[in-house]
């Protein structure tokens, strides 16, 4: 059996593991409900009051849908991916089979990430369909697949961080709380630094802000949209433009470093026994 087939077997396993979790399913439902709520509210209350073209509102619908829930789902799926196998004692069963640790972690990562992509695919599709239903014909729909890929790519940051903590700590709750803590702290600090940069003009604040994990995560997809179809007027907040290449590079660094750390930790250390 080849490397690819062994990775694919673990990938399929990871799908079952992630989707067997009722709270992951509950969060997916919540994410869709939240997205629906925003678009319905827009249609009912704001659209009538504003004289804005709503033919690209689907972009707002899709991006708003990602908001809090998708990073949270990413953190939960990835945070339990490696750690739960140690906590339950199933890592022994999986790794006593003819598979290398690199194949195992690759299958785990790709499995969890593909589940997340499915969720993002659903929320993207929901955003488009709801916008069509609530606001009539939409334009620029041809960029929907690119927008989906951009959202998926940007979610790599917190998925990878949580995945890394899952392997490093080998405790699911600790991994999820740490990743979520970083998400919250990074969001707050980033806002503060942006304000400081605006008020002082000191570029260091801007550099640090951009280096934090939330900047690239929250902005990359918007930068891609503005690159493709220009700056959009959103009734909620403007779709900003920016250096999408820098954002892409920062995402790659966070994801790459996290994957390398997790892999080295797995390969170099013993498979720990079930915690009593």
């Amino acid at each position, binding site marked *: 059996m080849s490397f690819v087939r062994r990775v694919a077997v673990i990938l399929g396993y990871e799908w079952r593991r992630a989707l067997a979790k009722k709270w992951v399913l509950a969060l997916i439902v919540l994410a869709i409900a939240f997205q629906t709520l925003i678009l319905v509210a827009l249609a009912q209350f704001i659209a009538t009051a504003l004289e804005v073209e709503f033919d690209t509102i689907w972009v707002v619908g899709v991006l708003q849908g990602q908001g809090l829930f998708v990073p949270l789902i990413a953190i939960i799926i990835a945070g339990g991916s490696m750690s739960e196998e140690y906590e339950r004692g199933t890592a022994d069963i999986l*790794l*006593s089979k*003819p598979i290398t640790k690199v194949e195992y972690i690759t299958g785990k990562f790709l499995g969890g990430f593909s589940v997340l992509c499915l969720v993002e695919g659903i929320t993207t599709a929901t955003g488009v369909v709801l916008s069509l239903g609530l606001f009539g014909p939409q334009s620029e729909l041809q960029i929907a697949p690119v927008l989906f890929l951009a959202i998926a790519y940007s979610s790599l940051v917190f998925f990878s961080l949580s995945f890394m903590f899952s392997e490093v700590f080998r405790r699911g709750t600790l991994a999820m709380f740490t990743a979520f803590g970083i998400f919250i702290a990074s969001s707050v600090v980033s806002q503060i630094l942006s304000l400081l940069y605006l008020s002082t003009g000191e570029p260091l604040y801007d550099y640090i802000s951009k280096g934090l994990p939330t900047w690239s995560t929250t902005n990359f997809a918007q930068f891609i949209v503005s690159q493709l179809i220009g700056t959009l007027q959103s009734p909620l907040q403007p779709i900003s433009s920016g250096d999408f290449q820098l954002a892409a590079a920062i995402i790659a660094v966070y994801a790459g470093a996290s994957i390398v750390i997790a892999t080295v930790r797995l390969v170099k250390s013993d498979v720990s026994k079930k915690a009593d």
Partner: protein
Amino acid sequence: MNTLSSQSVITVSDLTKFYGDFKALDAVSFAVEKGWVYGYLGPNGAGKTTTIRTMLGLLKPDQGEVQITGINPTKDPVHALQSVGYAPELPTLQTFFSGEQLMEFTGKMFGLDKLTRKEKINQLIDLVGLKEWGNKKIGKYSKGMVQRLSVALSLINDPLVLIMDEPTIGMDPEATAHFRNLFTNLSKQGKTVFISSHLLDEVQRICTHVGMINRGKMVFDGPITQVLEAFTRKWVVEAELEKVTKRMISGLEKLDYVEDVEVEGNKLRIGLKEKKDLRGEISSEIFKRKGVLLSLNLQKITLEDAYLRALRGGEQK
């Protein structure tokens, strides 16, 4: 100790493992050949599970090496573990699978094709008595059922080497007997069975060879017939007589093959110098001295006696 031979299916050489400062395994060496049922004995914390987990490549040895069918599982788990079936002690299986789904997944991990997987699942689910439970989620299984499923999982790849950590824990007596027969039959088919167990009676019944470990060190490794001899200082014949006389005792004490005679009421415990069944000779001597023999037994030597003696650091005779 067994010498490492080219026939060895499992070879553990000079295996040393530390957990921090604690030496869990201290230069452990043994070899298991094709068709053996090898019982691995030791008290809690002796290093049995550490040995097994190192054999499976789950732990990296600080020194020494393990080879399964000539391949090091730490360096090449794909080839080393392809022919290994493993049933862990009190396994926690993935509860989101049904028994059949988990077997299907495990079959995929071994690269079995769809048809083979289907055949194996039907055969093994039946073999372990879970036919009616195969499509139910594992979360609903009892401990004994999980244990049985774990044994079925370990057999899905038709392994050459079976590694079992306390395989019958949690099983009812009927299932235990069934699995004992299964392991014996597997060894007759040329498979090598490595069993870690606390159940000395079970080991004595099914194992051909025994390894004993205590505080991380091997204290015995050899055929089960040897272990009984090695740690049994002397054989004892117990004779119950209608009446014990001083003349009878002194007469028996003078015999060349008798080491000592202990008296307890009308019972004599006659210690022998050799490990031989000399009940015939002893009964003749008693009859010669007009004794009326009520019973005559060779004291049974159990693996437990030998095991406890080995753990106490008893000398091998």
